[in-house]
């Protein structure tokens, strides 16, 4: 009986704990499959980015619905929202925003710990694999849906021996919305 109680008590803990683990493990299974399917790491990176993009363009909808974030005034605000709201909401971490370029169009997200790599070690023969490249795609896809073209890439990765994980984001341009042109009746 006592054991039963213990088991129930830990339920809540279990749920929150493995919520992200489910994602982490599933992601791991995906990368493993991609490594089996493709000969070189480059291809895997590209595929991960592509899948991330597909996720991003849908995830932004969920994000806008859930958070009550409105339009951002500038790229700095966007950076803050990504780090403090989006990452917090979906990965449970808050990366720091640093290394702004003088022009203010480029910054780095520093991830102290990256939940995606919780159970991961890279084997020697995959030295060029960017394991978490999905994230780049997600950010690119999501921002594209709010009219921002950005370039996202990993510059440091703890999996490859760096101290922190660093994602570099560069603003490219605002995407003008091509509204279907309207014809007005003149006479």
């Amino acid at each position: 009986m006592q054991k039963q109680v213990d088991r129930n008590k830990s339920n809540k803990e279990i749920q929150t704990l493995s919520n992200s683990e489910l994602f982490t493990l599933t992601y791991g299974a995906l990368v493993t499959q991609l490594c089996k399917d493709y000969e070189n790491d480059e291809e895997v990176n590209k595929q991960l980015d592509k899948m991330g993009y597909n996720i991003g363009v849908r995830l932004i909808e969920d994000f806008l619905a859930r958070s009550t974030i409105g339009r951002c005034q500038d790229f700095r605000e966007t950076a803050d929202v990504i780090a403090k709201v989006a990452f917090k909401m979906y990965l449970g971490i808050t990366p720091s925003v640093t290394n702004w370029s003088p022009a203010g169009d480029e910054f780095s997200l520093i991830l102290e710990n990256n939940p995606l790599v919780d159970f991961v070690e890279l084997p020697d023969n995959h030295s060029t694999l960017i394991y978490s490249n999905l994230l780049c795609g997600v950010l690119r896809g999501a921002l594209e849906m709010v009219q921002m073209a950005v370039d996202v890439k990993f510059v440091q990765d703890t999996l490859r021996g760096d101290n922190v994980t660093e994602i570099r984001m560069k603003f490219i341009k605002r995407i003008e919305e091509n509204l279907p042109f309207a014809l007005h009746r003149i006479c």
Partner: protein
Amino acid sequence: MADEAPFQLLHSELIHYIYQSEHGADTDNARNITKLEAMGFRVGQGLMERLTKDTARFKDELDVMKFICKDFWTCVFKKQIDNLRTNHQGIYVLQDNKFRLLGSLSAGKQYLEHAPKFLAFSCGLVRGALCSLGVRSIVTAEAAVMPACKFQVMIQKS
């Protein structure tokens, strides 16, 4: 934290990838299902290892199944199994009236033919979870009216 949207989207990307990739060019449905199932298996195994870290030892097979229906299901699918039935000879039927991963498909019968690929990963999950508790099984799933579905677990006696 970590809300369920990322997992659902990842899951649908997974299916999309397996069915689109030129490597799976053999548009052989059964093979793709097997691939998805195998991925689920690995995930289920790992997840169960983490989940049962501090739990008491299970009394018997039924106890294990109850754990799958309650704790495991809640952890993965955010709800408990609605109905668990058994013939007491190694067959268990788990019914979920509102299965989360079928939630993105329209209810009813229109897309019924696509249901198996949305269930394959989960079959693997269950088989993997059972396997890491030392229960070998075969898991199949069927959906008659979405989003409800039934998982059938056949325990393999060695």
